[in-house]
């Protein structure tokens, strides 16, 4: 086993990897940008090294600084988390060249799956079903139009170098095609440095269902069943679950087998995910492979009992997988809600800020993976996810009940806005409860004004609370004025009701 592992990441996934290290008795090394000196992952790690200014490309994406940090602390291996360098073959090679171990797949596997068009070809050749679409990358709107004529609208335009929901556009009508092609090409170029794109048929009522795979260095490849991630906004997953409420036992078996075949086709090692889209008739098609640990891995951990991050580390040392396919089973049901510092009512715009009060839910069947603490600042430099809330239950109903309760217990207050209310709305929605949704669910159903604003009783209590605060505030003001020259009053007695600052009661 490694003595010390560097985590080339930040936020909740860095904390998640630190926890896996600690469970294994391995020391952890955090790296941090100037914006992250007091971030949770720095506090939790055994070692911490500064790697540059706030912008990620100058710190978390600075290969040399990260390798220097590993050398300076004697780290023997590097875990990339997700995002950042996690699917960068060059980073994996640089680590190997420095004599260290990259905790992830071989760079060749990353490359093969990183080019979405090449991956489609490879998968088709390996007998994995792929969505109808362009056999190769395209360059002009005319080429797209020709494919569209063949497979029919709606179609998806996708950046060849994209992934994780980025660099995609749905085109429903021919008239929108030109604008969409321009946007995708420009976004692909600016985001991935590669403007190439391709086309896929857009499925009817598509559901996003993915299969977790795991392989060791000795040729053993298994799957850990599926996750359904159809609750998305703008191709970003919001709520995930395992099992899927949609697929049948036969489909589950087939998807698992196909996923293992797909992983084998690229000589995969470590944790990976084969993403599929399924249509209303339960046909499923290869979407892409994520060659890293995923945000939503906890739901698989909760139903299979396998610690995926620990297994990543073990496999990277050369150990054989501690479990065979026949050891694996799904038990119960797990859900995950991604808690973001964002404002759903403002088009899900990021809304970072300082966390003044943080209360995390707990108790039976609840797991929180947080990247923040009370008093922390959510920075605008990075992804606005602040925590993942997962619940487990014997069945989907129990998992949903616990998620509702946990979302109620979850308090984040301060100068930021979160999507907690939005999640409460989702888990109360009859279609969500019935499992009757596809990737258009949020688009179709969500209206900011639909989110509960509290019942009449809560309204009344809120008004009373506000009035009591204003009253205390007025009293303290009067008291302060009356005894202004006197010694400072005991602060505990005065401050409580003043914590929001003096209310300005004449502001209109």
């Amino acid at each position, binding site marked *: 086993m490694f003595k010390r592992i560097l985590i080339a990441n930040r936020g909740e996934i860095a904390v998640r990897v630190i926890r896996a290290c600690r469970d294994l008795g391995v020391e952890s090394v955090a790296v941090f940008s100037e914006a992250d000196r007091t971030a949770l992952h720095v506090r939790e790690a055994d070692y911490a090294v500064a790697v540059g200014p706030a912008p990620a490309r100058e710190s978390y994406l600075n290969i040399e600084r990260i390798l220097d940090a590993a050398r300076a602390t004697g780290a023997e291996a590097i875990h990339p988390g997700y995002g950042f360098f996690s699917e960068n073959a060059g980073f994996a090679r640089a680590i190997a060249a420095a004599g260290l171990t990259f905790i992830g797949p071989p760079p060749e596997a990353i490359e093969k799956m990183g080019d979405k068009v090449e991956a489609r070809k490879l998968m088709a050749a390996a007998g994995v079903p792929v969505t109808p679409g362009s056999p190769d990358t395209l360059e002009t709107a005319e080429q797209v139009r020709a494919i569209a004529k063949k497979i029919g609208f709606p179609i998806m335009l996708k950046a060849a170098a994209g992934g994780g929901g980025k660099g995609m556009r749905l085109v429903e009508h021919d008239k929108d095609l030109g604008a969409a092609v321009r946007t995708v090409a420009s*976004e692909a170029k*600016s*985001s991935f440095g590669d403007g190439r794109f391709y086309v896929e048929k857009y499925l009817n009522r598509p559901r996003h269902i993915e299969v977790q795979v795991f392989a060791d260095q000795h040729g053993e490849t298994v799957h850990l069943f599926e996750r359904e991630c159809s609750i998305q906004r703008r191709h970003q997953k919001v709520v995930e679950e395992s099992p899927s409420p949609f697929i049948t036992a036969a489909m589950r078996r087939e998807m698992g087998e196909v996923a293992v075949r797909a992983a084998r086709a690229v000589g995969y090692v470590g944790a990976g995910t084969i993403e599929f889209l399924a249509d209303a008739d339960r046909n499923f098609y290869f979407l892409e492979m994520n060659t890293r640990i995923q945000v939503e891995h906890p739901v698989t951990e909760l139903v299979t009992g396998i610690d995926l991050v620990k297994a990543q580390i073990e496999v990277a040392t050369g150990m054989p997988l501690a479990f065979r396919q026949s050891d694996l089973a799904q038990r119960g049901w797990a859900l995950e809600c991604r808690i973001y510092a964002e*404002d759903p009512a*403002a*088009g*899900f*715009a*990021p*809304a*970072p800020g300082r966390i*003044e*009060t943080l209360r995390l839910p707990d108790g039976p069947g609840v797991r929180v993976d947080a990247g923040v603490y009370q008093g922390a600042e959510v920075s*605008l*430099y*990075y*992804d*606005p996810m602040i925590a993942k809330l997962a619940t487990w239950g014997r069945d989907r109903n129990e998992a949903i009940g616990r998620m509702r309760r946990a979302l*109620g*217990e979850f*308090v984040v*207050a*301060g100068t930021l806005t979160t999507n907690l*209310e939005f999640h*409460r709305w989702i888990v109360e929605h009859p279609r969500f409860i019935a499992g009757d949704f596809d990737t258009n669910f949020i688009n179709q159903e969500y209206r900011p004004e639909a*989110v*509960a*604003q*509290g*019942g009449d*009783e*809560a*309204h*009344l*209590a*809120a*008004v*009373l*609370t*506000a*009035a*009591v*605060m*204003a*009253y205390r505030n*007025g*009293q303290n003001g009067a008291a302060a004025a009356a005894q202004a020259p006197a010694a400072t009053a005991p602060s505990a007695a005065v401050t*409580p*009701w003043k*914590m*929001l*600052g003096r*209310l*300005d*009661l*004449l*502001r*209109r």
Partner: protein
Amino acid sequence: MPMRFVATVGDAEHQVEVEELTAHTLRVGVGGRNFEVDARQVGPSSFSILLERRSFDFDVARDGEDLVIASRRGATRVALVDAERRSRHHGAGARAHAGGRAELKAMMPGRVVNVLVAVGDDVAQHQGLVVVEAMKMENELKAPKAGKIAEIRVKPGQTVEKGELLVVVE
């Protein structure tokens, strides 16, 4: 002596009267009904409220001039004004821009990627006006109301601060 306020929740205005009974309990009158409220601070911004045996655990935040009072049952936005001062100032031209003008402001710092409209265009409510890239994501900012584009203050490539005025719709 009781204090009097006007509390606004959504479109509803409530006359509120508050008076201390004991160290932790207050009488609060709302719309003619009286409530006994037991209120304790239990954290930097957290309050435990007992109201006729109902228990509420509120986290209170200020958002601009309003108080946002949140519990597991949801959040309520309350605007409070001192009753006497308000009656003196009432109707004196408050809510100036309430009429035809609406401003689109940046929700957070970012870079303008695209401006989708021109001055003089007629736009529908929720129509996309400006695309801003922030936190590696492109956000299409939408028209706050239907109307005509009166001003455009930004152009593509420009960096904007949080709260910066982007477009005016009239």
